[in-house]
């Protein structure tokens, strides 16, 4: 945009804002001062105003009763479809709720099992740990000296390769 065009654009912006009542008091004062002394500026304002006022010749629509009636009917149909869509979404929502419920139940069972396992240890665990002792019980009776057996155990002589501690 050339400087001249820029100036013209500024001039038209200013005159348009003046005609539209969008200038502040200082802007209005500046425009009116120039209008009073610049005939070309004044003539341009009149041309812009005259073209703008011709827009009053444009026809205004006046719709008939049919418009309101068909609009209301259209909205009633849309509202009915919306209501149906909401109803249709209910089973889906219920299915989703059930799925989440089932998932929650599974998680609760798993969590409960873990917590229960921590609180109440497996009663067979002690038997499993004592299995090597039970298997050699007859031999231990023959030793008749618990300190001697502990000494043998500390030397790993009871280890059978699967358990390294005989108790």
């Amino acid at each position, binding site marked *: 945009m050339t400087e001249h065009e820029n100036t013209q654009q500024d001039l038209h912006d200013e005159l348009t804002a003046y005609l539209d009542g969008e200038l502040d008091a200082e802007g209005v004062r500046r425009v009116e001062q120039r209008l009073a002394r610049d005939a070309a500026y004044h003539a341009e304002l009149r041309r812009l105003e005259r073209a703008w006022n011709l827009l009053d010749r*444009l026809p205004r629509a006046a*719709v008939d009763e049919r418009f309101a009636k068909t*609009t209301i009917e259209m909205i009633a149909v849309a509202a009915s479809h919306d209501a149906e869509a909401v109803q249709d979404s209910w089973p889906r929502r219920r299915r989703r709720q059930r799925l989440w419920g089932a998932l929650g139940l599974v998680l609760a069972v798993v969590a409960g099992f873990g917590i229960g396992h921590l609180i109440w240890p497996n009663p067979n665990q002690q038997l499993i740990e004592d299995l090597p002792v039970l298997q050699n019980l007859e031999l231990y009776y023959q030793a008749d000296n618990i300190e001697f057996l502990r000494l043998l155990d500390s030397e790993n002589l009871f280890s059978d390769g699967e358990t390294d501690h005989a108790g």
Partner: protein
Amino acid sequence: MAVSESSAQRYQLQDPDVRLMLEVRDDSAAAFDELMLRYQNRLVTVLEHLVGRRDQAEDLAQEVFLRVYRARKRYVAGAKFSTWLYTIANHVAANALRSLSRRPEVNLTARPNESGGTNALDRMALAASGAMPTRQLDKVELRDVVRAALAGLSERQRLAVLLNKFEGMSYADIAATMEMSPQAVKSLLSRARVNLKEILEPYLQDGSRPPSN
């Protein structure tokens, strides 16, 4: 849109249409009827000059009212009601114009005329040819010339002009409706006024035919 409590209350106090819309939000059918009665002619007028056809303007206005109804539960008093309504209308019209632009047979200046069946440019060509007994600017002819001049503006200029001229909207309200800055609206309206002047002035001076689009 985030709206402060104070500005919502201000719009509610100042704009009776905002109060009606809040009743529509609460499912008042009577309030919706009232709003429609208040705006149907204004909306169809703006849309007709935007898209160039009355029947289509009515269809689009119905679409706008339908969107208002569907958006009622989300409505917040964040602006004047007319600003909110014409923001919706702007989107609806823009979609329609995009569709129209894909159909080469549609021409905004070549719409049928209710009074005679010929369009503005035909009338102007006839006038310029001297075939008319007298070249008086009768009301119908002048109206068609102005309509053709308006149609000669860009889509955005046309909307800004219609909102400013017919709806009396301020630059700030037009800016909110068209989702642009008030400064941009000022420039848009300035260019629109200059374009209208350049199209209409020769016709007013000596009956010269405005350039066709």
